[in-house]
């Protein structure tokens, strides 16, 4: 039994504790050591994650590098970890993003003069410790192969996230920023807590049902095997109820229309880095869990509800984009764009085709990267001017061309321009959906026009036109900020041109999931003799 996975989760966890325990103090030197330690930890985690990806064999078993330690015998709970293609991809994403987020938020936790004497001396320590805590919990939930373990960390990660949102806003808020922020934080927590509690009921229900049939375990592989082998039969009504219980939690987390309203507040009020953590990392746990748990555990119910869910996600795609177009606040615009994107992800998952689901998985990764780039640059912009309002900007490209350029790239990635990573995933999702639900697929393609609208509108209004006096003398990206953006842009291009490393990893897992729900891709009407691109 290798300890690679547990190490990958443990390093940030321990790092969080260490960082929190570092000597307090508002001195610049103290802060720098704190940041350095935290960054080092996150980089180490990245290394471990890379090791996981490296030692993962695409062809091999569904779950690899598995570990299992008995945790709560009374409830048949093991602390079981295992990496499958989907999980590994997302682990990589997380591990890549966290150091960048830290770097981007390097000064976000420096005590603000405004908060003066009451300012806690441990602010910096707290900020970076919380980020690491979130990372650790997210990693566990991506790797957990035990329903209970997943649930526990799925829920627990809310708390550090909550403190990140409520405790550290960007400095662009209005007079009642503090109130807005705590409102956003509470909203985030209550929404997700409600989802989590409903899921708790479902988790318990699942255990009871399973225990009645002699499968008293939370082990995901065991359960899925029992289900697909017919050893464990959940009667349709119960299965639907349980599915809804799970799905509700994930739909809130994802977030899926109409349960999305917490996201704009949370992303709007928190720092750009935190916003990225929310939309690019934490929310992915939701969509990831739909793919792994909803489909794996409740295949029939998933199929029953798939059409309804597809419609909701379709609404989400169009709705999110339209509302984004109507936004006045940069970060809220990005948030609604994300809602639209999550619509695509969920649609891909429940189209139940290999293209759809591989596309959805790639989408999670690519959306993470591209939105991170877009959001972080937006954050840099906002931190320079101290306002989130689109109207306060104009002609930035004149004074800060690099910033504008990277912002444009972020926007182009968001509207999934071919050649950039998001295009691959978005097109896969569309094709995957189209092959089974043509109408939905066609309507969804309107999303690409709307995406172009909000992305380019934002760019046009902030970056082009005559230089507003409010932005004159705005400095261009600093070295640190470039260091944040460059890898993201590079990844966006790389995965856009050569996504194979991901697809090779993801495809087998997706095929396994599809076999769990007993679905196969619809065959073409008039299949061509020679396969698509294969002509030497």
């Amino acid at each position: 039994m290798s300890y690679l996975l547990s190490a990958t989760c443990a390093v940030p966890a321990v790092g969080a504790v260490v960082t929190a325990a570092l000597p307090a103090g508002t001195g610049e030197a103290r802060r720098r050591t704190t940041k350095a330690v935290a960054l080092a930890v996150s980089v180490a985690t990245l290394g471990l994650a890379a090791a996981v990806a490296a030692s993962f064999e695409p062809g091999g078993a569904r779950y690899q590098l598995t570990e299992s330690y008995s945790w709560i015998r009374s409830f048949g709970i093991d602390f079981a970890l295992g990496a499958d293609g989907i999980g590994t991809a997302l682990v990589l994403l997380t591990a890549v993003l966290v150091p960048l987020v830290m770097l981007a938020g390097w000064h976000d936790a420096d005590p603000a003069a405004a908060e003066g004497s009451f300012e806690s001396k441990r602010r910096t320590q707290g900020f970076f410790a919380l980020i690491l805590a979130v990372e650790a919990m997210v990693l566990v939930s991506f790797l957990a192969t035990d329903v209970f373990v997943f649930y526990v960390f799925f829920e627990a990660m809310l708390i550090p996230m909550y403190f990140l949102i409520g405790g550290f806003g960007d400095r662009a808020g209005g007079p009642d920023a503090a109130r807005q922020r705590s409102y956003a934080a509470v909203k985030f927590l209550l929404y997700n807590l409600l989802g989590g509690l409903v899921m708790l009921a479902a988790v318990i229900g699942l255990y009871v049902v399973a225990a009645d049939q002699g499968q008293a375990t939370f082990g995901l592989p065991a359960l899925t095997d029992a289900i697909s082998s017919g050893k464990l039969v959940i009667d349709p009504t119960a299965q639907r109820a349980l599915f809804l219980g799970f799905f509700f939690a994930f739909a809130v987390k994802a977030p899926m229309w109409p349960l999305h309203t917490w996201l704009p507040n949370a992303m709007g009020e928190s720092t750009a880095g935190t916003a990225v953590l929310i939309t690019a990392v934490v929310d992915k746990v939701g969509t990831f869990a739909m793919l792994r748990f909803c489909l794996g555990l409740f295949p029939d119910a998933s199929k029953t509800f798939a059409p309804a869910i597809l419609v909701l996600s379709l609404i989400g795609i169009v709705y999110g984009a339209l509302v984004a177009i109507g936004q006045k606040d940069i970060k809220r615009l990005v948030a609604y764009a994300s809602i639209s994107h999550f619509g695509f992800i969920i649609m891909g998952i429940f189209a139940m085709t290999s293209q759809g689901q591989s596309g959805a998985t790639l989408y999670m990764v690519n959306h993470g990267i591209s939105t991170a780039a877009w959001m972080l640059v937006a954050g840099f912009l906002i931190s320079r001017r101290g306002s989130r309002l689109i109207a306060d900007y104009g002609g930035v490209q004149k004074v800060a061309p690099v910033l504008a350029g990277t912002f444009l790239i972020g926007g182009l990635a968001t509207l999934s321009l071919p050649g950039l990573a998001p295009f691959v995933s978005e097109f896969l999702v569309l094709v995957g959906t189209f092959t089974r639900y043509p109408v939905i697929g066609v309507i969804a393609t309107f999303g690409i026009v709307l995406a172009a609208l909000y992305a380019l509108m934002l760019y046009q209004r902030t970056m082009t036109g005559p230089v507003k006096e409010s932005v004159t003398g705005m400095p261009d990206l600093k070295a640190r900020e470039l260091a944040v953006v460059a890898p993201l842009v590079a990844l966006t291009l790389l995965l856009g041109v050569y996504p194979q490393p991901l697809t090779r990893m993801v495809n087998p897992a997706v095929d396994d999931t599809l076999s769990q729900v007993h679905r196969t891709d619809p065959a073409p009407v008039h299949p061509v003799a020679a396969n698509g691109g294969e002509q030497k």
Partner: protein
Amino acid sequence: MNSLIPLLVAAPLAGAALLLLGGRALDRFGHWIATALAALSCAFGLVLFFDMLGRDTEHRAVTERLFSWIPVGGFRADVSFQLDQLSIVFVLLITGVGTLIHLYSVGYMAHDERRRRFFAYLNLFLAAMLILVLADNYLLLYVGWEGVGLASYLLIGFWQHKPSAATAAKKAFIVNRVGDMGLSIAIMLMFAEFGSFAFRPVFSAAGDASEGKLTAIALMLLLAACGKSAQVPLQSWLGDAMEGPTPVSALIHAATMVTAGVYLITRSASIFNLAPDAQTAVVVVGAVTLLFGAIVGCAKDDIKKALAGSTMSQIGYMIMAAGLGPIGYAFAIMHLVTHGFFKAGLFLGAGSVMHGMNDEVNMRHYGGLRKYMPWTFATFMAGYLAIIGFPFLSGFFSKDKIIEAALAKGGTEGWILGTCALVGAAVTAFYMTRVVLLTFFGEKRWQPDAEGHRPHPHESPRTMVIPMVVLTFGSLFAGGLFSLGDSFLHFLEPVTGHEEGHAPLSAFAVSAIATVCMAAGVGLAWLKYGRKPVPVQAPRGSLLTRAARRDLLQDDFNHAVLVRPGSALAATLVFFDSKGLDGFVNGLAAAIGGLSGRLRRIQTGYVRTYALSMFGGTLVLVASTLLMRSV
């Protein structure tokens, strides 16, 4: 030898990357790098061309597969290039004209501090356009398709500090997106139908598919073509696109990118041939656009916009030809090439004029420039004669062929199309003559510019003149060259297929009529603008003129039908989101709070109330226990 194909793309791509990442260090000589790389790509193209000519007909098409791009289940997208007679024609046009325009831009953009970036974008465009024409499957084509869209977005909006430019750029991209939607749906349809979207398998299997499916695919492709090639109803962006620097207008919005739609339709011949309804749609679009563009061209005083209208109309010719099927494809391409030459030449000329007139674009402020910029005048005239189809110049051959083909369509349809084409020819002659007269003839109507500098017209630097001269040759002789023994036709035939149309009139008759129409147009223009002096302020003009000045109200239409309702919808949804959905959530929280506030009242603080609640509770408990037993 095939390994050269990727290099075709790689060279300009490398240039773009180099210039964008290179930073200020490259400001001084970056543009020369870009030009060199464009030329290099052109050289590769020529090598490949002659290599191809060296092979016999059925071995001319070659495929170069680089790597598998997106493999998921049955979905296989490869990065794989296919070089056949059709694509090589485009390769040569793109790289050739591209190189010339790079050269021209060296002079034109000499004083722009962001020149390096401009050339980076130009290179980026070349790369994307080459991907578009070299792709061997629709998805890769899509990459090039949107790539050129991006390049055009960047270049139209190159002078971003001008709000008009930024808006025009965005408009172009978004209108194109609508077209792209068509392309992506077409690809999805193909995948669902054939399990593939690569040219060869799809075309080979096209026969099996139902006509309905094929029509759907074809119509979606047509939508895409309309977007890229500024055909009705997606034509509105091309006029505004003239906000970009003139070389851009010449290269992208005249010679190459806008003709991509024609390429797409021709390339998909095997699908269109099996979907007659779709073909009808294509010819209708083409015919309508050729008149639409021509009319707009007549009314514009902005020289570039006039030329833009002309472009629209000329592409209308090509689309119509392509819609005619095997009898038209080759001629569509032929006209595309010749048009590439003379329209590029005309734009460069226009640019040169503006260059000399402090970037004045209003033709009513020109006049009598022929003495001041002879080279420009000469080359412009050549282009002019070519486009109006002056006998035995490029336009003459290519356009007459299309008219013939239109008539050859046969029946009323044929007559209608033929008439449209002929009318178009006449109108073309009219507006082009108008341009020439307003610009180079008549008395000076020069006006001081915003800063009050009076213009001092002068001939442009050599870097700008040379390309114009070179293009002139194309404008003059390309057509003749291609038609010598129908060499061009036979060269393309293996790809596009060809069947002789049987026009109700003899070729000579057609040419004669066309020439007469042309003469009529010229004459009319001379009567209107040649004889009497031209007012500096545009007269109010007839209703049609006014409509035409406003691009026949296309923007007003879009604004009324799409933009305003759209933004209204967005606003409504924003409200609904905050007040509706979010309101519901907050309302729920408030409701619980209120309930709590109400329930608190029972906690009166009086012992006896508490005792009462206990007593009541007891009674209820007892009662319900008894009840449980009785039921």
